[in-house]
């Protein structure tokens, strides 16, 4: 055996830091239209190349190219665009409300709007999403979810449907296919698989869609979900939103260096795609593919959505401390809203003028909803749900010891 040098520890570092620009070549992008689209019953192992490539439909001119560019109703695209615009307006206003102390906390999805929204439009009624805190788009795209009610949750006010129990953004909407958000990362991923298994056990046709961030893939429940989904061929879509950052650590710390998150799916025997998450058409097409695969009993699909967390992690975070201030401006996959707008205009289904009108209208809508919600109180003015409600729902029935404790509190 040869004599060896001293070992040393490798700690991944992003190329960019405050004062040093990011070299985004690590993303290894593919050109729009270049990635093949296999049939939905493809063998999991046969998706290997797709897990290292990047499915893209829209090119820089806003043209839709290649096998993933499906015939899609412009009406649906306009609906998607409006939902993305609404989401961005919603986020911006809520962040301000947080700064005004009307709510304790907020989390935006700035720059990632296409993913949840195009995905939601590819699902069927009754399907169940198990989201993270950054998929508000799943709710805001729906007509049957009341924005006022959502804002009441954020304000923890007297009309908060979650009775003040949860942090802002931790929504729960069973009837809208939106599972209760947990503060503990990754737990929902295996739960999504369990829900999908249940659907298969019951001979149902509904599928599940689980969500996780790049950082949270390091948690056990990510891998557990992959294992269970593979073993039981669960009808589930496993979405990894790789927005490059997990609070202050970049995706290399989560294991993304020199490989992809999609590749982990292939290793587990799961069909896997890596997709441009800022390309509304790509997101919709890939989601449809995976949904069709799941619903046809061909099993799970893991999709890595490549995107960028353009805002701070949450209202408590200052990204200027750990990454270049203008990083998003250099992110090669751009802004999903601008890109879809460009496409719609390019195909003649939208105009700058319509866009401006829509923007104004949506701003008015959100403002009105906010106003109405605030009329029911905010965290700052203390119009909260009653303390007695704190003791409910711990168990189905109030047990004796909690009755005594409620009494002790005098409520």
């Amino acid at each position, binding site marked *: 055996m040869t004599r060896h040098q001293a070992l040393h520890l490798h700690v991944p570092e992003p190329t960019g830091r405050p004062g040093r620009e990011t070299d985004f070549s690590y993303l290894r992008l593919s050109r729009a239209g270049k990635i093949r689209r296999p049939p939905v019953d493809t063998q999991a192992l046969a998706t290997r190349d797709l897990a290292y490539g990047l499915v893209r439909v829209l090119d820089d001119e806003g043209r839709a190219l290649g096998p993933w560019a499906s015939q899609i109703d412009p009406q649906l695209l306009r609906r998607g665009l409006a939902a993305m615009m609404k989401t961005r307006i919603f986020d911006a206003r809520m962040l301000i409300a947080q700064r005004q102390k009307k709510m304790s906390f907020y989390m935006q999805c700035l720059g990632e709007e296409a993913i949840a929204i195009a995905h939601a439009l590819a699902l069927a009624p009754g399907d*169940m999403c198990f989201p993270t805190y950054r998929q508000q788009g799943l709710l805001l795209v729906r007509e049957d979810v009341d924005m006022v009610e959502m804002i009441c949750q954020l304000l923890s006010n007297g009309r908060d449907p979650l009775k003040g*129990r949860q942090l802002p953004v931790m929504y729960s909407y069973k009837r809208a296919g939106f599972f209760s958000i947990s503060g503990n990362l990754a737990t929902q991923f295996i739960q999504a698989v369990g*829900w999908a298994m249940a659907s298969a056990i019951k001979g149902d046709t509904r599928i599940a869609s689980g969500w996780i961030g790049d950082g949270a893939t390091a948690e056990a429940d990510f891998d557990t979900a992959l294992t269970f989904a593979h073993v039981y061929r669960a009808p589930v879509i496993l979405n990894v939103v790789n927005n490059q950052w997990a609070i202050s650590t970049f995706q290399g710390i989560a294991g993304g260096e020199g490989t992809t998150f999609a590749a982990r799916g292939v290793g587990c025997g799961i069909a896997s795609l890596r997709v441009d998450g800022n390309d509304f058409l790509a997101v919709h097409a890939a989601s449809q593919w995976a949904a069709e695969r799941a619903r046809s009993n061909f099993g799970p699909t893991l999709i890595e959505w490549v995107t960028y967390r353009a805002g701070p992690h949450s209202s408590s975070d200052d990204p200027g401390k750990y990454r270049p201030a203008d990083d998003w401006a250099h992110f090669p996959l751009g802004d999903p809203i601008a890109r879809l707008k460009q496409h719609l205009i390019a195909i003649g289904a939208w105009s700058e003028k319509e866009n401006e009108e829509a923007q104004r209208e949506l701003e008015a809508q959100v403002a009105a909803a906010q106003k109405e919600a605030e009329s029911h109180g905010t965290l700052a003015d203390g119009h909260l749900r009653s303390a007695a409600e704190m003791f409910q729902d711990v168990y189905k029935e109030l047990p004796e010891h909690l009755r005594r404790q409620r009494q002790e509190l005098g409520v």
Partner: protein
Amino acid sequence: MDVTEQSSETTASARCTPMTMIQALRSAMDVMLERDSNVVVFGQDVGYFGGVFRCTEGLQKKYGQSRVFDAPISEGGIVGAAVGMGAYGLRAVVEIQFADYFYPASDQIVSEAARLRYRSVGDFTAPITIRMPCGGGIYGGQTHSQSPEAMFTHVCGLRTVMPSNPYDAKGLLIAAIECDDPVIFLEPKRLYNGPFDGHHDSPVIPWSQHRLGAVPEGYYTVALASASVLRPGSELTVLTYGTMVFVAEAAAAEAGIDAEIIDLRSIWPLDLETIVASVRKTGRCVVVHEATRTSGFGAELVALVQEHCFYQLEAPIERVTGWDTPYPHAQEWAYFPGPERVAAGFKRAMQG
């Protein structure tokens, strides 16, 4: 509440059969798989093979692979999937092969199953039952002998149950499966095949020779949060559960103390009324469990008793428990709180 009262809870046909605890547990799952198509059973080795303790033997054959099946060796995955199934509307009954192995599932148990109803205001619930064999006495060493019940009782939203005999095991397991709250169902493995009085050198007595081994064949429940008075008595109240129930009975007999022995059956939420009534009557109390002492559930029992019976207590409440060490392999019987140690605790409580 005593054993006679228990029977009134049941809706079973009068037909009783002698069953071991294993058979009683299997019968409970069988009954519930039959009655409710939303019940599913899974866990490590529980499918084709029927479980390392054989509690699910024959169930896969009877109900098919999509209702009774093997799971990967991932306690976290098993419970996490069960929570997801609960959100869908199923009632999963899962097995953790040994209670010592629940830790990888603790996030799903504590942060998810226990709090799902609360955080979603009942939008989603996790009506799951998590079975786990617990306790020592089979030379299982430190990773096949633990009694972690105290951990679960600190988690609001969970119910924790531990039967001590076949009759209760079946009735409680059916109640647990039907319960809309998540239930931790601990099975003292030393009792699987017979009652055990702690005299490990004596021959094993089978359940067929014990009155609590007579189990109705069909559906019945033993109510959760109801204790049972195993032995009425006037001098001393003994609070115990699981493996220690018959050890306490033997210790009382051997010490010649007229102890009232309360088998909690449900550890939390618990039947405080029965406990308080008894201690107010006897004025003395000993808490007995196999788990390690510090912050064991005995501490909570002591706290509750002194809060509710302070002025009736004639002596300090004694705790007889496993030592605050890992469960050793070879010194198992020096670790286990056998009849001698329990009796010594009774005597201290009588003297105080």
